[in-house]
């Protein structure tokens, strides 16, 4: 089944200039190493602070296959905890989210503070002098937050988040700063989509400017048949490399598609959304001074920013890749609202409706194609996946921020991903809970 002799040295032959080996998508041993050396081996997105706004709030998440709890303690500090009792190993938290000062294991009632420390055990006289409570807190993940985005790692030798992902986070600033002073808020429900394919098929696609005119033919044809030209995503038709979109290497495995130059007016190029005319009229009548700008922030940002290995900031949504097995992935789309004192609340009603559009008419076609990739990649006699588009056409250049940039159909983002992937998979860094 595998062509390499041992991980990690054998991985070199699987990632070549312009092509990668199919087993990277199908081999369970590789998948298992990814779950420790990528997910948790580097800064990995866990949650958004607006999901746990108050002291003692928590959400349960996955860090790779590990079940983890992201908490806010009584003083409002964030913690990342491994959801595993230090007694017999049971999970101590079984709710998806909630409020808790303590997590008490239901099996023998060992009880932990929401900052991780072991607070109490029943019948303590059963433990003698060797029992060191201070060493029996929940395993702790190193967590850092940037403007509400909480990342975690078990790699104690990584530089701080803002140093490691500084370039991507500076692009995230632009995504966040479309309305001065506004904050994004989650807890607006999710679309949760199952893909019977390897998780990397999703990351590959997130900065793939080559596919939309083809993979999204259904959406584009429906829109054209119903509304003519001019609406959402028309820039994906024809020779996209002659257009204004670009892709860029956002460093350390992060990638970026910038569509903004194609958008003359966000509101005019929005996808259709229920209530569009009703609320556009209401916003214009009630808030004439800010109405047009407000309508523009209903619409997605025109940016796809992908933060290695699992966060895809696309449109107005945060997509989080949750690998479950080598050929099974959940893709969670977190809807976002935008809140600011001077921003009409009607904007968010429209944003909810607009954020239902792509999960209905776009993403399902991609997911179907990813699953068919998985099926094709299972054929042992065909070894390679081609990732060489625009690798040697001379089309890449030093773009904004000094980043390597290419025309939008350039597969530069895949090559960027694989470079970081190999580095992390071959790393000797020790993964350790605090």
């Amino acid at each position, binding site marked *: 089944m595998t062509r390499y002799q041992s991980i990690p040295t054998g991985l070199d032959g699987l990632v070549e200039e312009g092509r990668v080996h199919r087993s990277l998508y199908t081999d369970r041993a590789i998948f298992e190493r990814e779950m420790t050396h990528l997910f948790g081996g580097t800064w990995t997105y866990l949650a958004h602070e607006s999901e746990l706004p108050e002291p003692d709030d928590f959400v349960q998440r996955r860090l790779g296959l590990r079940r983890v709890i992201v908490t806010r303690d009584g003083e409002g500090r964030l913690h990342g905890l491994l959801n595993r009792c230090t007694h017999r190993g049971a999970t101590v938290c079984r709710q998806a989210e909630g409020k808790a000062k303590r997590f008490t294991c239901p099996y023998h009632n060992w009880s932990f503070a929401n900052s991780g420390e072991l607070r109490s055990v029943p019948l303590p006289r059963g433990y003698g002098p060797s029992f060191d409570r201070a060493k029996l807190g929940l395993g702790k993940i190193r967590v850092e937050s940037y403007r509400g985005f909480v990342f975690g790692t078990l790699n104690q030798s990584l530089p701080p988040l803002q140093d490691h992902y500084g370039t991507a986070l500076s692009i995230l600033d632009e995504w966040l700063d479309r309305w001065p002073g506004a904050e994004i808020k989650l807890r607006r429900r999710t679309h949760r989509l199952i893909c019977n394919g390897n998780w990397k098929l999703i990351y590959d696609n997130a900065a793939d400017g080559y596919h939309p005119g083809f993979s999204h033919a259904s959406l584009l044809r429906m829109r054209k048949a*119903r509304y003519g030209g001019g609406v959402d995503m028309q820039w994906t038709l024809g020779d996209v490399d002659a257009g204004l979109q670009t892709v860029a290497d956002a460093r350390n495995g992060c990638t970026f598609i910038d569509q903004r130059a194609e958008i003359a007016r966000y509101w005019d190029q929005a996808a259709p959304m*229920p209530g569009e005319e009703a609320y556009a009229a209401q916003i214009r009548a009630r808030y004439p001074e800010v109405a047009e700008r407000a309508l523009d922030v209903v619409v997605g940002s025109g940016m796809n920013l992908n933060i290695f290995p699992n966060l895809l900031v696309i449109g107005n949504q945060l997509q989080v890749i949750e690998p479950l097995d080598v050929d099974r992935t959940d893709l969670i789309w977190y809807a976002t609202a935008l809140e600011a004192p001077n921003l009409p609340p009607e904007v968010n009603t429209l944003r909810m409706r607009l954020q*239902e559009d792509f999960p209905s008419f776009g993403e399902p076609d991609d997911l179907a194609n990813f699953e068919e990739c998985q099926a094709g990649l299972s054929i042992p006699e065909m070894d390679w996946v081609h990732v060489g588009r625009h690798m040697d056409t001379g089309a890449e250049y030093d773009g904004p921020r000094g980043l390597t940039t290419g025309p939008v159909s350039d597969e530069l983002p895949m090559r960027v991903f694989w470079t970081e992937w190999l580095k992390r998979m071959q790393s000797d860094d020790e993964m350790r809970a605090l």
Partner: protein
Amino acid sequence: MDDFLDDGIMGAGFTLEQILTDAVTSPYLDDSYYDLLRQDMAEWEAMGQPLSEAERASHEALILQENWLLDRRAYEKWLHLYSARCLYWIPAADGLPAPEVADPQHQVTIAFDDRRRLGDRIVWLRTGVASAQIPVSHTAHLSSGFVRVPTVREGEVKIRSSFLCHEIRAGHPVQVLSGWMGHVLVEEEGSWKIGRKLVCLLDAGRAHHNLTFLV
């Protein structure tokens, strides 16, 4: 594309060409409509009464006809069952969702289709190039437990029912959806139409594999 006659044995319907130009704006989903949905959610809680023979003949029959048209993939006829200011709504929260987790004015949903988006969905399904529908889904709907739920809204009838929906696409395992539905029926041009359809999936909060068919 499925062929059909305008008034064939499956009943009246639109043509795809008519749907292309039907409802290309979205003017009616406003604050008062969302108020109405919050009122609906409160009313669905109530105990229902089994249908009378007359109610079965008009209301239950309409819902069973809807199931049949969906199972036949007769979407152009199916849309004809809906009112001009209709809504097809699948919350992304389990059970009978509490307003704070499922108020669609503030929360994203699995489906929230006004008349325009229903048209989009049908045209999308009929493009024949949607990878998520190659091959197409086939469904078998089973509805039971029809009860009429009281409503303060004059001229409207609220029917609650339980459902099972099996879906099959060649090459994929059978998917089973279950839960309950609420149909708000309204009279329009002398006949009963579906004004609002609510589909509460048992597993609405979980991940799903390809919900691009109509439930």
